[in-house]
Every structure is written in C-alpha cells, then in structure tokens.
C-alpha cells in the first residue's frame, strides 16, 4: 500500500496528471479511476481513451457506482440476508430516526445514496476481509479524482482502503468542496470542507498517506489567481497560488460590472455566464451554467452573478462561510483571462469597474 494525495489549486492540471499517471503504468496494472460528477466521468473517459487508447486495464466509474458494484451488490446479504440491490435512490433520504432496513432502503427497495457510504462500511466489517480481498484481487490501484468531494462515511471507507493492498492515489482541491456525497450525514462532519485538510494531515502524520501540494495554476491569469486566494479566510492557511498563464489579451483580470453594462459586456466579450442556482440572475436572459455544474470546466472569460454573501464579502470584506467560499472559488477559477462580477455598489472593494 502506497497512498498519495495531491492537493492542488484549480487549473493545476490535476486531471491531466491522473491521465499521465495512467498512461505511464504497465498495461498489466489494473486501475480504477473514481470520479464524482457525471460530467467529469465522461470527460475523463474520453481524455483517457485519447491518451492511452481503449486499454482494458483502466476503468472509470463514479463513486456511487463503485459502492454499488463492489460493495453493496455482491455482499448485501452479509448485513441483510436474502436481500438484493434493486435500485438506487439518488435524491431520497431516510427518516431521520429510521433504523435497520428502513435506514438504507427506500419503500420501493432501492438503496439511498445518502446512506450508501455507511452501508459500505458495514459490509466491509461484516465480510471479514472477503470484500477487501475481492477488491484487492480486481484492482492494483484506485485513483480518486476530486477527493475533496468525499464526505461523511466516505472518509471512514478511505481509511479502510488505505490499509488494503490497493494503492490509493487521490487528487483534490479542498477549496473546491462543492459537492457532498452524503448531504445530511453527520458522521465525520468535522472533516467537511476545509477541515478535510486536517484529516488528511493526521493520516500523513501516522504514515498512512503522503501529501503533495501543487500551487501553480496553468489556467488562471495572475490577477485571477491572486483574487482567488482572497476568497478564503486567511486563518485556514491555504498556500498562495502561483500563475503560469502568461497569455495576455486586451481584457485580463477581475472586474466589477454594473447591471446596466451587463448586456454590452456579454456582447463584447462573450463570457460564460455563471450563477449559483436557477433563482439567481433572472434579470437577464443569459446562457447560464450553475457554479457546481461548471466544476472541472475551463472558459476564457466568465461572468458571475454575485449572491448576497458574495456581495457582502466584496463590499465589506466579510469572510465567506466554507461552503459559499468553495462554490465562489470554483466559479472564479473557471476563467483563464477575465472574471466579471455583477455588482452595482462597490462598498470598500478596490476591484475596478468595467465601463463601455
């Protein structure tokens, strides 16, 4: 077992690093690449196919698929004798006080996504080694992309995998923890978001994990990189981002944008417009993408509709909570050259306004 974690900033070619790692491996080495979003999974598969061809030794699957296919499906009877996996309920949640079967199965017999991590942990324990032996026999390495998105019982599961013969290799950016695989789980709540870092560091001290930091971005221009660092409370102690993007255009950096100039700006620069969710930015009929959905994507320019907390952060310098900070960070770091934030009153912000 050799377990690695690369903590990297947005745009530091994390995914590219994974692909290069796969390409450099011997074809006999069986590798599983785990991702968290459909989009990411699709993109990874395509990029892998391009760089290493259709080799059968590298398999890409989502985290939930992994838990269903290699944990729940084969071993469910260890916890629930006679039961089979007959469906997957992504959105549903069990009653807060549900126990036993009702905790894990919805009334139609499908497994709750939210409780899958807990179930997987139970199965590892109940199988008395059979589950991990099977997994060890199937894979030599498991690569986890976007490791910051693990949550709750997933951490517990990771700990078990660290101790297995499988090499675990993770890449992630704590600053980007926007998705949670277990939205309501209280287990390991202390690790959520930025505190994940502390958890990883504990593992490192115990010699279970090696951590490597990558603070250079190939994507964001220096101005964007500098601004992205300011989003987080300095008390969290993130290292400074260094930009390797040396491209210059006639419009580089971070700008504020008054509502009246939005349409002209879009006309002129054709940015990708980002919003926090469907209720935001309704004043304009723009081709929006939600922050979380944009994760992993790269655009030359983005336009961001400021939310309440983002406005407060910009106008009064009040730190964002970890969650909103992460989503805002994701949005900002999608851009290579320019970021425009729609905000009418600057408050104490020193960011320049774009004018026609």
């Amino acid at each position: 077992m050799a377990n690695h974690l690369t903590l990297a900033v947005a745009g530091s070619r994390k995914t590219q690093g994974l692909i290069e790692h796969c390409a450099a491996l011997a074809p006999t080495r069986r590798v599983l690449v785990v991702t968290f979003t459909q989009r990411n999974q699709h993109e990874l598969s395509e990029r892998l196919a391009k760089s290493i061809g259709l080799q059968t030794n590298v398999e890409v699957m989502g985290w939930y698929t992994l838990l269903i296919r290699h944990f729940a499906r084969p071993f469910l009877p260890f916890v629930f004798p006679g039961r089979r996996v007959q469906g997957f309920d992504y959105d549903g949640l069990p009653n807060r006080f549900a126990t036993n079967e009702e905790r894990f199965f919805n009334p139609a017999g499908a497994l709750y996504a939210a409780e899958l991590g807990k179930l997987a942990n139970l199965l590892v324990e109940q199988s008395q080694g059979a589950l991990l032996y099977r997994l060890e026999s199937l894979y030599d390495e498991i690569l986890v992309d976007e490791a910051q998105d693990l949550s709750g019982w997933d951490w517990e599961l990771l700990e078990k995998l660290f101790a297995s013969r499988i090499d675990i290799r993770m890449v992630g950016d704590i600053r980007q923890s926007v998705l949670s695989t277990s939205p309501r789980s209280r287990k390991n709540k202390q690790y959520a978001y930025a505190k994940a870092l502390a958890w990883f560091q504990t593992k490192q001290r115990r010699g279970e994990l090696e951590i490597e930091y990558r603070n250079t971005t190939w994507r964001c221009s220096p101005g964007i990189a500098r601004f992205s660092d300011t989003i987080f409370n300095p008390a969290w102690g993130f290292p400074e981002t260094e930009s390797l993007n040396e491209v210059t255009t006639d419009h580089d950096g971070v700008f504020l944008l008054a509502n009246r100039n939005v349409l002209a700006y879009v006309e002129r620069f054709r940015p990708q417009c980002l919003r926090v969710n469907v209720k935001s930015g309704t004043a304009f009929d723009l081709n929006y993408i939600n922050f979380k959905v944009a994760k992993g994507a790269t655009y030359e320019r983005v336009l961001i509709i400021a939310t309440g907390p983002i406005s407060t952060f910009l106008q009064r310098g009040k730190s964002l909570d970890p969650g909103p900070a992460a989503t805002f960070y994701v949005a900002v770091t999608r851009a290579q050259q320019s970021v425009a934030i729609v905000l009418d009153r600057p408050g104490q912000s020193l960011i320049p306004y774009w004018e026609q």
Partner: protein
Amino acid sequence: MITKIKVKGYRIHRDFELEPNPRINLLVGGNDAGKSSLMEAIALAMTGRIGGRPAAEELNPYWFNTAVVSEFLDSLLIGEAVWPTIEIELFLQNRPDLQALCGVHNSAIPAQACPGVVFRVIPNPEYDAELQAWTENPSILLPVEYYKIEWRHFGDSELTRRPRDLSIAIIDSRTIRTFGGVDYHLRQILNDHLEPSEKALISLEYRQAKSSMSDGALAALNQRLGQVEASLDQQPLKVAMDQTSRTSWDSAVAPHIDNVPFSMAGQGQQATIKISLAMGRHADRTNVVMIEEPENHLSHTSMVILLNRIERLAGEEQQLFISTHSTYVLNRLGLDSLMLINRDAVTTITGLTPETVGYYKKLPGYDTLRMALADRLVLVEGPSDEIIFERIFHDRYQMTPMACGIDVLSMRSLSLARCLELCARLGKRVAVLRDNDGQDPAALRESLEDWLDGEHRELFIGDVDHGHTLEPQLIHHNGEAALRDILGIRADARVDVWMTREKTEAAIRIAESRQRIVAPAYMAAAAAFIHG
C-alpha cells in the same frame, strides 16, 4: 476450481450435491444414473449454453425433474402449488483471479463469500396471468415459454456470456456434431489457442484474401454481369466475396490431420485431437475440461495412447471431469478419482491407499467398474467357481444372483486384500469364496482380517478335509457316482482327474444338469450371506 456443485430440479437430479476433486473426477454410474445430466448442468452454469447453443433457445419441458413436476401437478389439485424450478450452482475456489465472480449470493449457510455462478430456470413474473391460465388445464409438460433463464454470479450481477475468467472445454465423443466437423466447442477451443492480436491478424488477412478474389478472378465475371440488365433501375450487378460476419475466418478454417480435413478423420481420431487441443492450451486458460466417454470409437491401443496423453496434459490448475463406462479408463486414471453417481447420490472413495490405486493402475484390465456398480458382490477364484455358484444360488432362491442385484466376479489371480479394500471403501456387501489349497482356513483368513466384519464382508473357505479345491469339494458333497452321472462321463474315467482337467466344461455341465446338486457347505453359506 469448482469446489461444490449443486443441482436442483434438473433432469434426473432432484437435489444433487457434489464436492469434486480438484484434479481428476471420473464419473461412473449405470445408464440413466445422471452422469451426462451432471456434465450438462456444469456446462450450463459455466457457459450459459448447452450443446454449444444458448440455453434460452434450447429450454424445453424435459429439463425439469419429472418427480418435481408430478408433485407440482398433484399439489395443483389441492390448491397451493410452487412452480418447479431449476437451479444449478457452482461454487468456485476462492482465488484472486476469480474474484470478479465473488459474492454472498449463494445458498451456503451461514453466508459465505466466494466466487461462483448460479443458473436458474424460473417462472417469468411477466407471464403471471398466462401461467395462472395454464394451471386450469395442466399437463406433465410445463409451459417453458412462460419461464425465464436467470444466469448470475455470486456477486449478483447478470451474466450474458461466459465470464472471461472461466474457461471450459467440452469434449463429447459420443456424437460428433457436424459443422464441417468443427462444432461450437472445437471452434471455442481453437479460438482459445490464439492471442487477441493473432485473432485480429488472421481476421484481417482473411478479409484481404477474400477482397483480392473479388478484384481478381471475379473481375471477368463482373464485367459480363455488368452488361446484364438485372436490377430495377439499371444499377450494375456484380458479385463479391461475402464479407459479413457470417463468413468469418473461424467458420472457414478446419483442422487438418496429415492433410486430411478434420471431418474426414475417423471419429476416434477426432475425439483424440479435440481432447489434446483442449488440454494442451495454457493451463491458466482452461480451468475445466469435461470429456464424455473418451473410450468411444477408440481401439484399445488408441485408448491407451489417449489416456497417457490425458494424464500428461492434465495441469495443476486444470480440473477434469470424465464420464466413462470403461474400467480401463477408471483404473488407468486412478480409482481414487472415482465418483459413483446414482441419481442424487454420489459415492466417492476416500482413504484408498496409494498402493492399491497404483496396483489397479498396473492392472487396468481388471473390472473394478463392475465392482463399483454392483449392488452386492460375490468374489470367486475362477470361471468354474462363478458358474457353480450361480447354479447353487439359483437352486436355493429360484433367482439368478444378477436378478437379486448380486454380481459374481472372478478375481483370477488378483489380490484378495486389494479387492476387499476397494469394496470396503465403496461400502459394498461382499462374499468372498476361495479354495483352501490344503491350508488351514483360519490361517488363510488372517491376512484379510482387517477387511472382514462378518456383516458386510465375509470370507468363505471349504474344509480342508472336504477337498483342496472346488472339484473335490463337489465330489465330497455329491458322491462320485452322482457326479459321474451329472457330468455324463464314461464309467472308467476317474471323476476327480476329469473334473480337474476339464474345469470349465465340468462346471457348465453341472450348471445345466437337471439333477439335484448338493452345494458345498462354504458355498451355501456364502449364498445365504450375500442373499441376506
């Protein structure tokens, strides 16, 4: 490889369970004992196919166990009835390379995680109404149209084709299916000899060869055809070699032996080649080899060659299932691998000493199979003892021993101790008769004492005073005059000399005689013992 086989409701097997040997399994049994059904069942669960064809296409009412079906029909009359199903379960060794098939979805109690596959034929819930309707007017032939096949591994995922990690070679020399003499199994075997890259290369070259035919030899024909107004709207007509997958290379190649195509070779030759091809593959690729009656179509000499080859090729990682009716095969491949199948019952030999296994390997002509198949046994020294015993038995019980399930076997000069050891391991009831040859019966008994228990196995020896061998014993019990008459020999001939010289002829004449025969005491005792 396969560690446990469970067959429920398939053909003759109602509830069958077997833990096979890791290497060689010799399946023996009478006709209709279920050897072939067992091999079929294994193939079904491992490949989802039967006789090379997908199971779903071959499913028919005769797959179901008749006893289960008639019980179902009976219970239909009463009301609550459970539809008959078929379930074949193969538990596999818990090896790393088989872990893709690992899981807890099996019938083991308590729950056990191991690799395995399960093949089921169950009523299709989508046809619930139709099934219900059928019960209004049921028959012994189940409506298999409303059944479905479910093939899964123990990890609870559906299987659609043979899992990559399971490889099986099936050699059935009884019926050679024709497909240019190359049946599905043989094509499979040939395919397994090739690396994927080699296969691709062959396929490509074959296409190119066909394509060059189209451009070359066929060009002149196409020129002429082009002139013909054949199609509706005047598009030119031409012929080209068929490049569809129907005509792929593997259906166009056939093995040749000494330049004779496989299908033209003798059946024995075909079977031998298949076996060698199947077993000669990389040991890590063919996990299970099943051979049905390898002795078929083979002369004795060829069979000896084949068996030597099987023994040599059997790799550490290969598990062999061989069904046979040949004692020679059984002895040669090792009696300790014997699995005596009788419907749902399996008898295996455990504890047979390696020396005894080796003893029969050196004497492969000896009919151990008869010993294995018989219900009860009488072991005698030679043919004349056999004939006389049968007559005496018939006199007492008005039935032949065979009709009572008793097989009388001449041991010739085989070691009694070895025979008794085998019988003891097989759990057979056996009476042994032997001449005293002038020695004290108690002394003769001593060396066999270990195997005799007076209940299942007993030794019967005539009094020394009554004669050293069978003939003097007969004279002693019947008197010279009577025997002379029974045998129909001249008055001046000496009965003892004549009988000793013409042993078999004397025995036959006694057996056919209409006169009363007094049985030698030890023989009568043996008959009584074995008849029970």
